[in-house]
């Protein structure tokens, strides 16, 4: 791994939460990944564990860390985890997750929701 990049990241960011996040999650990943690379089931279990222990919003920080470190496997893993986490969620949940606000005109959003009403069926409760 690129240790100089890691050091730079620690020096740049003052936020302790991020540093902790990296230390506990991202750094051990290469070893974990190598160990369980061949076994998809184990990777799935690890993914479930990660989802339970880490708040969804934390995933954002992990993604940024992995992106900065150019750590492709971790990035792929985290993106996949986020996708699985939001797949069956409501529009409001997704907005909160990414820190977005609706910028539609008042009638526009209702129109869209009606047009794609079938896609709202079976969505998880917030």
């Amino acid at each position, binding site marked *: 791994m690129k240790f100089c990049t890691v050091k730079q990241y620690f020096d740049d960011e003052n936020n302790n939460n991020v540093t902790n996040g990296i230390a506990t999650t991202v750094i051990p990943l290469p070893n974990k990944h190598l160990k369980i690379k061949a076994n998809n089931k184990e990777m799935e279990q690890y993914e479930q564990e990660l989802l339970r222990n880490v708040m969804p919003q934390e995933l954002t920080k992990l993604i940024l860390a992995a*992106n900065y470190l150019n750590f492709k496997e971790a*990035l792929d893993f985290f993106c*996949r985890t986020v996708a699985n986490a939001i797949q*069956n969620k409501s529009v409001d949940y997704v907005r909160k997750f990414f820190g*977005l606000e609706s910028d539609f005109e008042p009638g526009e959003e209702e129109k*869209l929701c009606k047009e*794609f009403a079938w896609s709202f069926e079976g969505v998880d409760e917030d």
Partner: protein
Amino acid sequence: MRICKARRRSFTIPNDLIEDILSRLPVKSLMRFKCVSKAWHTLISSRQFAKSHFQRASQNPSCMNVLVFTDNRVLSLGYEALFQTSVHGQPVDVDFQGFPLWGEEYVETNLASCNGLVCIELYNRRKRTSEYLVWNPSTKSYKNIPRPTSTPDSKSCWFYRFGFGYDYSTDDHKIVRPYQIFPFDIKRIEIFSLKTFTWKTILVDVDNIYNCSLPLTPKTTYCNGAIYWSALKYGKPSIIYFDLAEELFHELPWPESVLYCVRDGSSGKCFYTTGLWELGIFGEHLCLSVCTGESRKNLCVQLWVMKESWTRLATIPYLGTCLRPMCVSKNGEKVLMRETQVKCVGITGECYYKLVEWNLTDHTCTSILCDPNPRMEAATYVESLYLQ
């Protein structure tokens, strides 16, 4: 354009990563998330995103679905329903509001699919005319295709089986209809571009292979930018294909070692298996399924795939039916096939279709859906955002 804004001075996921995350989502989620914001609506509706989403989905065998038209119902079977080890899942009834389904006896429905879209041909047997529709079962959107303006009178020409394919060079889905005008024996091909939404006709070059071959096929196959027809060239089975980017016909010879003529042991006569072969798909490759053998009593079905050259994939028992490979399970062990059985009624034969699954390792065959049915059409499709 920022597609992710943070409320506090915290962390923002860059646009390209948001796109990465979204490109992994199923179409149903994406259609819903069009309501998240204007930027997300624009992104999800964009052609470029549809392309990258499709590229990812096509690499994932779990995104493969099978569409079945039978008994006035339209059913969809997902990957789990097809290749689950224990019980096969139930097909889902597809809601098809305001869509002119075949209902009349004299209308024949034919399907062709490629890259996430399904092309439906409604052939009116009385008038000998065809109407086309292009449908995306994932987004539930469809488009009626206008009639070609320059089609000659159906009495003076013969249309061969239509094909539907994707042109990589122009990022375009196309419908092709080769035809022949009697008595001049000139072959032409009509091409519809979904992008320009217009038809055009190309005259086939006299020296071109297509003029020497007679397309036989009850169904065309799309594979990697070309459309394939089974053909007969000077009495021998052959394969002709139309490259959508070049707009030219080429010939693909049969695997050399496959016998298409099987000797009848007792009479010494030749039994041609030219009626007992089909082209299909195995993974991303063209697959030839052919009934062959040393003698008439010793027949089997061989599956060959076209990679750099023809490679024999498997040999399975011949059960008196013709098999068209449609899709394969993740581990390559199970193949879904459309089985055609010809039942003789007096002097005519009628075709009955069924979906079956062959296990290539233990040579077992399971019926997936339907009792043999003369009006069953099936096509595979991958979830996509083309046509929303």
